[in-house]
């Protein structure tokens, strides 16, 4: 409960400086009453925007997961493959995905495809690199133990390497998810015609700051919700680490 205190305090300060005494410019700094009434009034539109954003996010993030994890397992278990692709990953992984935006827009026919490509890149690298690392960190004694059981190739990947690397994979997915979300809103602000980023951008063009602040707050709630879901999933999947 104590954890909610700072949040409550900030809310009160916000309320006092705007709605009560109007110390701040009411045009640029709408108070909680205005913002809450906007959210109440505009929520169907906020939710359609959210749906549009989440579709883009989940498709790209999903693609990143299903490609980065198998590739990461493959690369992580073989020193030879890792050495072979190391120069490439070293060069390509640190490139900020944002710089691909203009090129992606020029290359790909629709905004949707271009932004999902950017989101994919953003999520791919953290997941891939963490999967590789996770495999490398599996205790060699466990791998020895697995070898003595004469494990099939399929089980080797699915039942040994994947769960063994899972703690690290989850850190990668959490970073990838947050990064994808940043890229998502950025892409929508730059060139979108729907979604939460576009919502904020669109109303700020009209100087409708109560709606801008509502959009920002709503995005905050969504990200908090997503990371919470991620954390719950992680705790369930990695329950074998808890005493």
């Amino acid at each position, binding site marked *: 409960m104590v954890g909610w205190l700072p949040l409550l305090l900030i809310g009160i300060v916000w309320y006092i400086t705007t709605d009560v005494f109007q110390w701040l410019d009411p045009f640029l700094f709408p108070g909680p009453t205005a913002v809450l009434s906007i959210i109440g009034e505009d929520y169907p539109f906020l939710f359609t925007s959210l749906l549009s954003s989440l579709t883009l996010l989940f498709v790209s993030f999903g693609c990143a997961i299903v490609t980065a994890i198998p590739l990461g397992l493959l690369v992580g278990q073989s020193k030879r493959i890792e050495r072979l692709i190391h120069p490439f990953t070293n060069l390509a992984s640190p490139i900020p995905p944002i710089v691909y935006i203009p090129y992606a827009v020029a290359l790909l026919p629709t905004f949707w495809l271009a932004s999902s490509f950017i989101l994919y890149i953003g999520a791919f690298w953290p997941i891939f690199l963490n999967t590789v690392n996770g495999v490398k960190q599996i*205790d060699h*004694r*466990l791998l*020895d*133990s*697995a*070898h*003595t*059981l*004469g*494990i*099939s190739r399929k*089980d080797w990947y699915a*039942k*040994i390497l994947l*769960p*063994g690397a*899972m703690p690290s994979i989850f850190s990668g997915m959490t970073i990838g998810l947050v990064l994808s979300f940043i890229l998502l809103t950025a892409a929508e602000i730059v060139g979108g015609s729907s979604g939460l980023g576009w919502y904020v951008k669109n109303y700020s063009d009209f100087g409708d700051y109560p709606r801008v602040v509502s959009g920002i707050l709503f995005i905050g709630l969504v990200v908090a919700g997503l990371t919470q879901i991620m954390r719950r999933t992680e705790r369930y999947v990695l*329950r*074998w*680490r*808890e*005493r």
Partner: protein
Amino acid sequence: MNGLSIEGVSKVFATGKKEQFVALDRVSLTIQQGEFFALLGPSGCGKSTLLHILAGLSEPSQGCVLWQGHKIQGPGLDRGVVFQTYSLFPWMTAEDNLLFALKQKERKGARRDHQERVRHILDQVGLSGSEKKYPIQLSGGQQQRVAIARALLLEAPLLLLDEPFGALDAISRAQLQELLLRLWQEKKPKPTVIMVTHDLDEAIYLSDRIAVLAANPGRITELIAIPWARPRKRNELLSNPELLDIRARLLSLLQGEDVSGQQGRVAGW
């Protein structure tokens, strides 16, 4: 030919561009089927390296190992292995660890049949009620019980134990020694057991024969038979003069190695 025959096995590790470490130097040994055999020696004598070669986890630099007339090439389910730690997969419950191992051996077996056998063996090692626990929720002794259960479940004719009780307290250690002996004797035919240990009382109490190894380079210095009828009584070890003689002999062999090891280091200066 039955049993296990180790023929002139050497293992050399490169430790630098030109330096190398001779972990095993032309070790030869024949072990009978159904024998309980201990490899006893100080750390660095290559006893674990030898066990890894027997398990097929590493290859000898020279020589070869024949098991029931066939050359050992790579790991296989005809050998059950228990390590000191990390035998079990931490992401599987005790029961799932065993089911997983059994599934590797009998891919077409019915799940219900597998489950019954797993429950039965867990009961035999005194772990019924802990089936659904993950390794981290089990004590060190319980984890080793599961690991032993796994090796026995696979019905491997050769059991390779790499200091299986090395990380346990004295009480759990004695309990697990009894358990291992009981399960080994119950099996028909008795599996061949090769156990790596640095505990000489453990080696005497459990084994039919002991090979004493020395380090630098790793080699067998002595083979000692333990003339002690089974079932054995633990306290007899301290009253039987013949066994006390053997114990004293083993102790001097192990300690003698320490001294010569130091001399070697001085000579190296």
